[in-house]
């Protein structure tokens, strides 16, 4: 709990518990992510990866346990924590009847992004959104929706990026863009927390591997020491979830 070392930690979560009705999803989960570190979370379907990301991004409140993002306790200073985190979860979280530009403009104003038009242009170029900027997001392909979602998540220059199976269903160009964004984010010394189904890719793109099983982190190891078999060996059948 010492503020000295928690400042250096991008994520510090202790004793997280969350259940929905009868199903206990998180059961006393502890995890830490250091700044500048890319972490990948593996786990079988329905084991609670998405719930964990929702809890870490302030969207879902844990029943018990505490989380701080860059030393900001989510139960007390969630609004500050939100400034330093960006998230791309399953749905793009964009207004279907607004264009990409209108969406980015809106969310940028919500975050009070400095020099918003410039930042939007920057993200447009970086993510290759140029020709689609004036299209309603409802009409976009899945790949462009994800790119736009990524632009929304990064507009306010977050220090930590949460990606929940962001590469699923992306075509090759979009996937390249995503990989580029992740590696740039890491190169800039920022943190990334992602989940993915492709285990090889996940291990290759991260510094550290977590495996979520039974509502806890069952494996926490440097990516260089982990093989895909180590990961799948820990998957358990969560048929009661």
């Amino acid at each position, binding site marked *: 709990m010492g503020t000295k070392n928690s400042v250096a930690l991008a994520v510090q979560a202790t004793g997280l518990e969350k259940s929905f*009705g009868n199903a206990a999803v998180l059961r006393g989960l502890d995890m830490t992510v250091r700044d500048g570190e890319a972490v990948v979370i593996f786990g079988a379907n329905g084991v609670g990866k998405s719930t964990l990301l929702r809890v870490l991004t302030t969207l879902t409140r844990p*029943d018990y346990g505490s989380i701080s993002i860059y030393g900001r306790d989510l139960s007390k200073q969630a609004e500050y924590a939100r400034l330093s985190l960006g998230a791309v979860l399953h749905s793009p979280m964009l207004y279907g009847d607004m264009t990409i530009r209108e969406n980015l403009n809106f969310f940028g104003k919500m975050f009070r992004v400095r020099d918003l038009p410039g930042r939007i242009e920057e993200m447009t170029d970086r993510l290759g959104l140029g020709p689609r900027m004036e299209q309603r997001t409802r009409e976009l392909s899945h790949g462009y929706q994800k790119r736009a979602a990524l632009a929304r998540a990064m507009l306010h220059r977050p220090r930590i990026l949460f990606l929940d199976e962001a590469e699923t269903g992306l075509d090759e160009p979009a996937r390249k863009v995503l990989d580029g964004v992740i590696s740039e984010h890491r190169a800039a010394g920022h943190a990334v927390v992602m989940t993915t189904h492709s285990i090889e890719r996940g291990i290759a793109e991260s510094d550290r591997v977590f495996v979520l099983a*039974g509502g806890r982190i069952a494996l926490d190891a440097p990516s260089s020491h982990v093989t895909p078999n180590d990961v799948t060996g820990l998957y358990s*059948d969560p048929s*009661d979830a």
Partner: protein
Amino acid sequence: MAALPKIRLIWLGFTAALMALTLWMVFLWVPTEINQGNIQRALYFHVPVAWTAMVAIVLIAVASVAYLKTRDEKWDRLAVAGAETGVIFAALMLITGMVWAKPVWGVWWTGEAKLTTTLILFFIYVAYLMFRAYFPPGEQRRRLAAIIGLIGAIDTPIIYYGAQLWERAHPSAVVGPYSNNDSSVDGPVGLTLLVATIAFSVLFVYVASERYRLRKQEDEVMALRRAISLQALRVATTSDSTESISSAPAGGA
């Protein structure tokens, strides 16, 4: 553990005795009201249930605030117990009110402020209970229910004020001969009312606490079920890793 049932039994006996005393006072002891006749005895039920319905709202409000502050399930149980019991007492208040109004004022419904208020509150708390029935159990349901319960409580004085204004603006179509009759509530009448109010309050506490207990047991059953399904999961997981191949789906649902 053994002390608890005893207290409940004593409370039940106390409630029964008070109720018996109330019934005796209402029907045998207190003199018949000169103007209205026997129907006036409805008053001895109408006022106490109206009072307890009001207590229920305060209980829901306090429990809801406490829940939002502490997130302790016991407050949620208390709020539900208050709401379910309160809805029944509010319904009794409306029925006794109408039964009393018909012979005395010639109409079932008069738009009298307290009746109007109770009717609207009845609807709000029925919606509160319906919401709980629609929503899957869990923290979210407890929290949203607390918000509804609280908004209803905040609305109560506003509704009452509005209903009073409305009553004044619409002097009701009263046909009966006693519309302006201010029954005096002193002497035996007052005493009977007092005893009846205490009896119904005690009854309310009894019913609400029984409901609270039942609710708690329901939650305990849920928790046990959860523990059992987790246990089954854990057994399946360990057998998974020792035998490395296990095609059987892990148990527990």
